[in-house]
């Protein structure tokens, strides 16, 4: 197996606050990796340091064998990114946003094909701001896929969506996984992680407290469900959640 994303000993502090400490992640080609943790546990900082939009204090990152800071232009021809918050100008339509994104890449998939695939074709002329939550998230997946990437980063893709919309997004991700795309995601929903992720990492106060498969997480915590295992690992007060 070929390692697609390799993070070694990554650390980042803001002043005296240690946001991420000694992070090690290795994601193989075609794998879906989920980075989990409570709000403020360091997920976004980790993702940003891996992508190179934030400068890590120490450690090394390599994506597709490239350094995301020094080889940024070459790397991002093959990597799609969707950030946590939506980022698009006011009054832009779906097709305009797709065309703008497409123009940034040397090679790309025709956005109309992707819109069709994600059932958004009839929204082509609509304002992005008028889409429903689920449609918007599907559009952001489309944008991340326009460069025809080998790796995609999806930060809290389904936060704020209703159950049905989340299922639609899952199905799309599942399809991508089957096509061999490497996916790095963060999520708050354990049901989704259980369905999608081959391996997970659980962050607590910037430290990786668990790293392995979903099954391993459940077994090593003596729980029956991932949600309980997650709480076991992120449990900050040492409370026994089984009593709830």
């Amino acid at each position, binding site marked *: 197996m070929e390692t697609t994303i390799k993070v070694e000993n990554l650390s980042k502090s803001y002043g005296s606050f240690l946001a991420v400490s000694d992070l090690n992640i290795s994601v193989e080609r075609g794998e879906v990796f989920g980075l989990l943790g409570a709000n403020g546990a360091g997920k976004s900082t980790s993702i940003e340091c891996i992508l190179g939009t934030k400068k890590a204090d120490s450690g090394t990152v390599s994506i597709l064998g490239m350094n995301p800071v020094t080889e940024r232009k070459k790397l991002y021809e093959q990597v799609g990114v969707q950030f946590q918050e939506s980022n698009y100008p006011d009054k832009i339509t779906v097709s305009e946003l797709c065309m703008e994104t*497409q123009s*940034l890449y040397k090679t790309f998939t025709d956005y109309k094909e992707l819109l069709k695939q994600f059932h958004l074709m009839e929204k082509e002329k609509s304002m992005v701001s008028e889409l429903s939550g689920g449609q918007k998230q599907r559009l952001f997946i489309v944008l991340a896929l326009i460069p025809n990437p080998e790796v995609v980063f999806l930060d809290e893709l389904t936060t704020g969506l209703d159950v049905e919309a989340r299922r639609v997004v899952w199905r799309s991700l599942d399809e991508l996984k089957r096509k061999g795309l490497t996916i790095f995601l963060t999520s708050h929903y354990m049901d989704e992680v259980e369905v999608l992720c081959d391996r997970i990492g659980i962050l607590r106060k910037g430290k990786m407290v668990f790293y392995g498969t979903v099954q391993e997480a459940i077994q090593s915590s003596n729980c029956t469900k991932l949600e309980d295992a997650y709480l076991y690992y992120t449990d900050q007060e040492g409370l026994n959640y089984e009593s709830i």
Partner: protein
Amino acid sequence: MKAFRTMLKTELKLSIRGMDMIIFAIVFPIVMVILLGIIYGTKPAYDGADYTFLEQSFGAISTIAICAGGVMGLPLLISDYRHKKILKRFKVTPSSPILILAVHLVIYTIYSVVSLISVYILVKIFFHSDFNGSIFGFVGSYVLVILSMFSIGMLVGGVAPDAKTASIIASILYFPMLMFSGATLPYEVMPDTLQKVTDFLPLTQGVKLLKATSLGLSIDNIVIPVVSMSVLAILCISISIKCFRWE
């Protein structure tokens, strides 16, 4: 180049859809010309002057769009795009956020030039004014005014911590400059003391240059406006390059 063209086309469409610049940079100067034209017609600027009041105002009115784009439009746009993380988004593409900034500098330049041309056509056709100055001098001055005004906008947008602050700073700069630099209220009708104060506004210097070059007047002291505007532009550009906040 393909990226630049696509972005320019789309962002220009978005900007026109937003309407602000159409109103403040295109319609507003036209209304000013019509008002001044109706009030002053072909009256000379003062008794015995060999150019009309309107001809004298042409250079001033042509800066309204530059001021709107540079001092109001740019800071608001930059802080908005930063807040929406659009600038940051460009950092995870093969392109760079500088592309989108360059696109918008070109868009505001387009507004300025369209405004200049429409104002010129209007004074020429409806109010029979002539351009008797030096085209070279005028264009040079016009470029210098664009440079200095846009650099102020880059600085404000680049260093303001959020959209709200950017909008406050932009308003503090924009409205006095629009009112008192001679762009709208003619400098010549201001009392002496007010003229002395407004001489400190960078746009006042620009308006003086444009007036002199459009009327073909010899300017008593060309050094002060040229040097002050160039220094301002260099200063603003270097600070914004050094301190620009991408997120």
